[in-house]
């Protein structure tokens, strides 16, 4: 099993929803996109391939370009078929729902062929054999393989096959980490005796950022990577298998393997000399711009929508107030992650509209924040002295005029601080849209941390960029507050 197979971090509700979603997109008769060709002739067609480029040496982002073994192999397959290749870099959690929803035709993301996956997905013939292995510190010669971890502490990436390997050795104490680079960092810090992980990836990280570590012992498992397709794309599977066979026959496959995994490559490739701060800062700036853009758009749309919902909850017609109340309860009571997934993957199936990831992200963030904004406005309106509405009525104003000219101007002053809070929370929550492939700030940090094998350098920097992004928001709110206070 591939280490990332079970790497779902959403809540239980999110998992349940994903299950529902899979059932939905697999239901017969759904308006799924046509495969590129039903005839097996892919010349002149475009093959859309999804990948999670945080997994060197198979796929990562380097200077803004997708690179890696899978990427070159995918391009070669496209070349064999005479098709154009279009890559989408997205989070691993979202890669299969997107495939099944017809957002791409293939997934190439170091995906291990497992019986569980074969129930829902179709695989090409295996193209790479990997396995779990032990990593240890260079200076700790007591670790020579899995047996030597007995009575000691070992680290793994959470929910991976490494856990299955270590289950057989109950006297090894296991510590789980959200990603393999963090486990390796703790190993380097001396808190672990070893780390069990995917062999080629361990080698990559050790080569690029963790020179104090080494791999040791035999491969503990044998895992085969395959190219993933929808089960009904039979013609595509035949074509891809044919292309893989031709690439093997012509020797181009072997050349690619040699380039990435050959002894010469391992020796010759120079380790990265430190962190390239300039390009890192540029990537993070781009991520921050996207984060800010998403947040500002979602706030600009969410503020009026939230205000409308807050006013709707006070409306006389029961239907309106009930609907607005239900809106708040549903959007506030379900995880934002699930809402993002629903809007991007399920809505197109249900309504037949296809949303670009950016639009889906803005829509999800808008709808979600509007629910919180509505509650903030509701409290703000309730905090205004009821005598104000009475005085306005006694002057002959309609309730709409009283709201517009007397109540709301005072409510807005009262809610500026909590609205600022909501804006900042939204800015940070916007990182969840990485699941639909938006390379915002957190996602950029993830990609950089794995590409450079330098989590300790990248994550504090990501935090600084978040701080830089929130400062203009808080400054703006403070200035607005001061201006309104001056009128008193």
């Amino acid at each position, binding site marked *: 099993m591939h280490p990332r197979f079970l790497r779902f971090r959403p809540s239980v509700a999110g998992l349940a929803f994903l299950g529902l979603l899979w059932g939905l997109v697999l239901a017969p008769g759904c308006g799924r996109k046509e495969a590129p060709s039903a005839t097996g002739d892919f010349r002149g067609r475009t093959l859309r391939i999804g990948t999670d480029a945080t997994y060197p040496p198979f796929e990562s982002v380097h200077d803004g370009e997708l690179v890696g073994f899978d990427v070159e192999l995918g391009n070669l397959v496209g070349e064999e078929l005479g098709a154009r290749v279009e890559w989408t870099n997205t989070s691993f959690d979202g890669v299969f729902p997107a495939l099944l929803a017809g957002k791409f035709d293939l997934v190439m993301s170091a995906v291990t062929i497992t019986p569980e996956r074969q129930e829902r997905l179709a695989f090409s013939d295996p193209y790479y054999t990997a396995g779990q292995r032990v990593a240890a510190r260079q200076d700790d010669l007591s670790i020579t393989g899995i047996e030597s971890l007995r009575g000691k502490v070992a680290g793994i990436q959470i929910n991976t096959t490494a856990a299955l390997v270590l289950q057989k050795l109950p006297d090894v104490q296991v510590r789980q980490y959200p990603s393999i680079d963090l486990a390796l960092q703790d190993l380097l810090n001396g808190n672990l005796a070893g780390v069990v992980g995917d062999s080629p990836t361990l080698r990559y990280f050790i080569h690029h950022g963790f020179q104090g570590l080494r791999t040791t012992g035999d491969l503990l498992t044998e895992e085969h990577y395959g190219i993933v397709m929808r089960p009904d794309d039979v013609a595509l599977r035949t074509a891809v298998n044919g292309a893989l066979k031709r690439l093997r026959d012509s020797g181009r496959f072997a050349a690619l393997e040699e380039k990435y995994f050959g002894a010469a490559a391992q020796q010759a490739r120079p380790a990265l000399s430190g962190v390239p701060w300039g390009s890192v800062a540029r990537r993070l700036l781009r991520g921050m711009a996207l984060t800010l853009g998403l947040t500002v758009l979602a706030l600009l749309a969410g503020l009026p929508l939230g205000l409308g919902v807050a006013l709707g909850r006070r409306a006389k017609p029961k239907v309106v107030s009930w609907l607005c109340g239900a809106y708040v309860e549903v959007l506030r009571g379900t995880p934002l992650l699930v809402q993002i997934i629903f809007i991007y993957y399920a809505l197109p199936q249900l309504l037949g509209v296809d949303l670009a990831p950016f639009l889906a992200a803005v829509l999800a963030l808008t709808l979600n924040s509007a629910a919180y904004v509505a509650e903030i406005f509701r409290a703000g309106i309730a905090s205004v*002295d009821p005598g104000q509405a009475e005085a306005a009525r*006694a002057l002959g104003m309609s309730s709409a005029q009283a709201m517009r000219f007397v109540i709301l101007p005072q409510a807005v002053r009262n809610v500026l601080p909590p609205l600022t809070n909501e804006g900042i929370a939204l800015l940070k929550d916007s990182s969840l849209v990485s699941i639909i492939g938006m390379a915002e700030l957190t996602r950029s940090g993830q990609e950089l941390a794995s590409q450079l094998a330098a989590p300790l350098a990248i994550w504090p920097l990501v935090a600084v960029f978040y701080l830089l992004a929130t400062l203009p928001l808080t400054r703006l709110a403070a200035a607005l507050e001061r201006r309104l206070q001056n009128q008193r």
Partner: protein
Amino acid sequence: MALVEVRNLHKRFGAVDVLRGVDLTVQPGEVVVFVGPSGCGKSTLLRCLCGLELPSEGEVMVGGVPVRDDAVALQALHRRVGMVFQRFHLFPHLSALQNVTLAPRKVLGMPDAEAEALGRRMLSMVHLGDRADAFPAQLSGGQQQRVAIARALAMKPELMLFDEPTSALDPELVGEVLEVMRELAREGMTMCVVTHEMGFAADVAHRVLFLDGGRVVEEGTPQQVLREPKQPRTREFLSRLLQR
């Protein structure tokens, strides 16, 4: 024709009977003062006259139009009746002038320049012509209440209601508000006033009503009700008021 006609007015809040059959007639130009112990229903009566409360039973007619549960009719009523509250209820986010001009601009659709001229006139009338740009928080209680009076007057009401207008004021600020109200009465404004200021009632009122337990217990000229009360409850109330 009477400006206000109240017949057999009952007002209940849940199980509590606040008004139990009140009859009242107010002629144009009359100043009527309501007195009575706390909880006697005098404020509720006032709020029924301006349509902030609706009768549970009986009838309230203002200018010949019955007060009823109809948003448009109520709005029309509000335009004809000015209300001054115990706690002013000025709009804190607006200057004194804006407080006065808001309703003429938005409700009557008066052009800004005209509304501003009107507002300044109204503020001068309450001797606050020089504080037009001050915000409520920058004004004393007495000044705020005078702005509130100007705000109500700007709608050119036929009837002005005052609900304990000086009760929330420091004693030394009471006089300036009563003075403005005296001037209004002299100019012939029809007024209904709930107050504990017996001096004001004696000087200005044409008629005094003593309410207790949701009913009018005694009614007459200030001389009759305040100096020579016939009802024991009126006498008891007035003697307690004097002992303060």
